[in-house]
C-alpha cells in the first residue's frame, strides 16, 4: 500500500505511526499520559486533519465545523443506545450521517465564497446548536445531554449486561480498559480507547496524505490560489469544493463519534461556535495547508489547556520561591492571570501572535528556524539558495526534497 507514496512520504508515514503508537511512552514524562487526555489529543487531531482538508487546501474558512462534530456525537450515541454497544456500527453511522449533513450544508454554503461562506457556515452551526437545545430535545435531550441508559433497547446485545449501564466496546474490548505498566518509575497507561482512536488517526492521516498528493488535492490548492482562473481552465470548481467540504465534515463526524465512544455523553455545547473556533485555532496554530500541522496544533492546544489550566497561584509562587518574597509576589501577580482559569487569555494572545507573525503556523516556524540554522552553519550561498527554496515548495516528486513544509518537521 505504501508503494504508491514517495520515499519521503513513506518515511513521514512510518515516523507518524511510531510516534502515535508510542504515545503513552512519550507523553507520560511530560505529565500527559492519562488515557482521557491522550484520547483527546488523538480525536481532536482527527478533527483538525479533516478541517485542514477544507481550509488548508481550498482556503474556505468554515466557522461551523463543530456542527458536524455534534451531529457525529449524537448519531453515534443513538446507535450505541439502539443497536449495539459495539462502537463499529456507531462510528459508521455517525460518519454517514455527518457526511449527509455536510452535503446539505455545503451545497447551500458553497454557493458563496469568502466572508459570506464563513458567515453562512457560522449561521448554520448556530442554528444547529439552537435546535439541539430547543426543538430537537427529544433527540438530543437538550441541556442535560444525551447519555447511555439502563433502558436502552440495544437490539443486538441488550442481554449482555443486565443491571448496569454498558460501556462502549470494540468486540468486547471496553474503551475504558487500561493496562498500567510501570516503566522507569513512571506508570505507563496503555488504554484500549486510545489505541482504537490512534489506529483510526493513523488511517485518517494516511488518507489525508493521499488526498494532498492526488490531482484532486492539487485542484483544491488551485481553488485557494485562483478560483476564477480554475473555472476558465475548464474545471467546475463547485463539486470539488463540495467534495472537500463533505470529506472534512465526515472527519468531524468521526471525531464526534469517537468522543462519545470514549465518554458516552453528548451535549449541545459541543456544537457551539466556540467549539468551531477551537478547531480553527488548532489548524492555524499548527500550520494550515500542511500535513502534520493540524495534528500538532491539536496536540499542543489540548496539552497546554490541560497543563496550564491546572496551574494556580500557589504553583506559580512556588516557581519563584528562590526570589525575595515581594519580587516573587510581583511576578506571580503578573503571570498568574495568564494561567489557570485565565489560560484562554494566553491562548488568544498566542493565536494572535501566530496569525500576525507566523501565518504558516508552527510548521512554518520550524522551517524558518531550520533555514536559519542551515544558513548559519553552512557556507554563505548566493541567491541560488533562494531559488532552491522555491523549488522545494513544489509538491511534485522530481526534486529530492519535495513539499518541504511537511517533511522537514517530522521531528516535531
Amino acid at each position: 500500500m505504501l508503494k504508491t507514496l514517495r520515499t519521503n512520504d513513506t518515511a513521514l508515514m512510518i515516523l507518524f505511526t511510531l510516534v502515535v503508537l508510542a504515545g503513552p511512552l512519550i507523553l507520560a514524562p511530560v505529565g500527559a499520559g492519562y488515557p482521557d487526555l491522550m484520547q483527546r489529543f488523538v480525536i481532536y487531531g482527527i478533527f483538525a486533519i479533516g478541517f485542514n482538508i477544507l481550509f488548508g487546501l481550498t482556503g474556505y474558512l468554515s466557522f461551523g465545523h463543530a456542527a458536524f462534530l455534534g451531529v457525529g456525537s449524537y448519531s453515534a450515541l443513538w446507535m450505541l443506545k439502539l443497536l449495539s454497544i459495539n462502537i463499529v456500527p456507531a462510528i459508521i453511522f455517525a460518519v454517514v450521517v455527518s457526511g449527509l449533513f455536510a452535503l446539505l450544508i455545503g451545497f447551500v454554503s458553497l454557493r458563496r465564497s469568502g466572508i459570506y461562506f464563513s458567515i453562512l457556515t457560522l449561521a448554520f452551526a448556530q442554528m444547529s446548536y439552537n435546535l439541539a437545545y430547543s426543538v430537537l430535545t427529544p433527540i438530543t435531550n437538550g441541556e442535560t445531554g444525551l447519555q447511555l441508559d439502563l433502558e436502552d433497547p440495544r437490539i443486538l446485545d441488550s442481554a449482555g449486561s443486565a443491571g448496569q449501564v454498558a460501556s462502549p466496546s470494540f468486540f468486547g474490548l471496553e474503551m475504558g480498559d487500561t493496562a498500567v505498566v510501570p516503566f522507569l518509575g513512571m506508570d505507563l497507561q496503555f488504554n484500549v480507547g486510545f489505541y482504537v482512536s490512534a489506529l483510526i488517526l493513523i488511517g485518517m492521516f494516511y488518507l489525508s496524505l493521499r488526498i494532498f498528493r492526488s490531482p484532486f488535492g492539487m485542484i483544491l490548492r488551485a481553488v485557494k490560489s485562483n478560483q476564477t482562473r480554475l473555472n476558465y481552465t475548464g474545471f467546475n470548481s463547485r463539486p470539488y469544493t463540495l467534495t472537500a467540504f463533505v470529506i472534512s465534515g465526515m472527519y468531524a463526524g468521526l471525531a464526534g463519534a469517537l468522543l462519545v465512544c470514549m465518554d458516552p455523553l453528548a451535549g449541545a455545547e459541543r456544537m457551539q461556535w466556540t467549539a468551531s473556533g477551537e478547531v480553527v485555532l488548532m489548524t492555524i496554530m499548527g500550520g494550515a495547508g500542511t500535513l502534520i500541522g493540524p495534528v500538532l496544533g491539536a496536540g499542543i492546544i489540548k496539552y497546554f489547556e490541560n497543563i496550564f489550566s491546572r496551574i494556580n497561584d500557589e504553583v506559580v509562587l512556588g516557581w519563584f520561591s528562590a526570589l525575595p518574597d515581594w519580587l516573587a509576589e510581583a511576578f506571580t501577580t503578573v503571570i498568574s492571570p495568564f494561567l489557570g482559569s485565565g489560560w484562554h487569555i494566553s491562548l488568544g494572545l498566542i493565536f494572535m501572535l501566530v496569525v500576525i507573525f507566523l501565518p504558516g503556523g508552527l510548521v512554518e516556524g520550524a522551517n524558518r528556524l531550520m533555514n536559519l540554522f542551515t544558513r548559519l552553519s553552512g557556507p554563505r550561498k548566493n541567491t541560488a539558495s533562494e531559488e532552491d527554496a522555491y523549488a522545494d515548495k513544489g509538491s511534485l516528486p522530481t526534486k529530492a526534497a519535495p513539499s518541504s513544509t511537511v517533511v522537514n518537521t517530522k521531528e516535531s
Partner: protein
Amino acid sequence: MSILKVKGVNKRFGGLLALDDVNLSVRENTFHAIIGPNGAGKSTLLNCFIGKLMPDSGTVSFNDRSLLGLEPHEINQTGISRVFQTPEVFSELSILENVMIPAFAHRDGAFHISPFKSLAKETAIREQAEKILQDVGLIDERHHTASAMSRGNKRRLEMAMCLVQQPKLLLLDEPTAGMARADTNNTIDLLKTINEAHNITFVVIEHDMHVVFSLADRISVLSQGHVIVEDHPENIKGHPKVQEAYLGTAESE
C-alpha cells in the same frame, strides 16, 4: 469555414448601446484580430464570448453550438481557451503544476474525482506539461512557484496553460497591455511560434497596432459598437472608414 459565428448581437447598458448588431465570423486556423478605438465595445464583445455577459439579442456560436448562458468551465470544455489581460496563474503552485491542471481538465473533463489517485503516477500528464514548458522555454524553472515570475514569463506560462489543452480557439484579451516594448516583442514572437506550430484559431482583442499587423491574417474593426470593416490587414491600413473611426476619436480626445 468559420468556427466562431456572431450574429446580430446587441447589448445595451442603460442608455448606452455598447454593441449594435455585431456580425462576425472567424474562419478556422486564422489569426483574427478585433481592433477599435477606446469604448468601441471590444471588451463587451469578448465578455459575450466567455459567458460573462448575456447579449440582449443575437447569437454567439462556436462550431454550431451556442455559447450563450454557458458557465466558464463549459465554454472551456467546448475547446475555447482564454488568456487574460493581466496574466492569471496559480501563484502559490509550481509552474509545472500550473500546466498540469489544465491538462487534467482537458483529459478528465470539468469534474472527475479520484481523491486517492497519486499525482506521482500521472506520468503522461506530466510529460505532456513538460513538453509544452519546453516549447515556451520555462522547463528549467518548472519547480519554482509561479508567484516569483516576471510578467513576461507569466504570459508564457499562461500560453502554456492554454496550449496544453490543445484548444481549437484561443481568445487573447490585449495580450500585451501594459508591457514594455521588449516584452511586447517577446510576446509577438511567442505567438508567432505557437501560430506556426499548432493548428489553433486565434481571436485577439488588441489596442496595439504593431502587434495586430505583425500577427493577424484578418482584422475586424469595431467602432461605436458596430463592425465597420472586416478584411485582410493590408486592406485595413489605408481604409478610409478605419481612419475616420480612429482619427475621429483622436480629435475628440
